[in-house]
């Protein structure tokens, strides 16, 4: 198995919902910093947080996060 990259649609989904990182952070109970690092691919969220984010946007986890095999 080679390396992989976890891409996400958080920025796009935020734009659709028209909310800021801070607002999203408050909705899912984390800090803005956590959302920012996930959005920029610097931090891989826990399963719980990934599910919470997907639920908030009303989409599946697989739609919000995509694993790219390199």
């Amino acid at each position: 198995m080679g390396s992989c990259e976890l891409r996400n649609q958080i920025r796009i989904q935020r734009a659709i919902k028209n909310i800021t990182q801070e607002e999203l952070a408050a909705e899912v109970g984390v800090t803005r910093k956590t959302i920012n690092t996930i959005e920029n691919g610097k931090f891989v969220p826990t399963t719980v947080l990934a599910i919470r984010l997907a639920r908030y946007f009303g989409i599946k986890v697989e739609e919000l996060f995509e694993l790219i095999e390199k």
Partner: protein
Amino acid sequence: MIEKMDKSRFNLLKWLTIGWAIWFGTYILRDWLDDKLIFGSLILIGFIGWILFTLNLIKYLKLGKKVHSDEKLKEALNNELYQQYNLKSFFWGFWVIVAVISIFFLISSFYSEISAMLVCEITLFFGVLAPLIARLIYNKD
């Protein structure tokens, strides 16, 4: 609430770091000075640093206790991201201590003997300062 606490934790850590640098920095410098006027000024500056460090450390510990006693806050302010920052910061602290001791080892091996007290003071100074600075850098955007 969460955002406010995160910012306040960052500020406490910042002032705690500044306090430590001033307090212990002047404490080490005092050993090297003979001038009474500068020595007196350093004691005063050091005292201010000690107050800064102690007050912010107490506040920081209180905040930590509050975060740990509340599940929601703990999940938000002590999640894997922040635990990762803590680990990385301690990693930096460890390597800085190794580097400082190595430098002292080299100096004492090739040049002259160094006071054990000075080695302890400088190692302690950098051993505390390095993870604090690293934590601040990681926490910053």
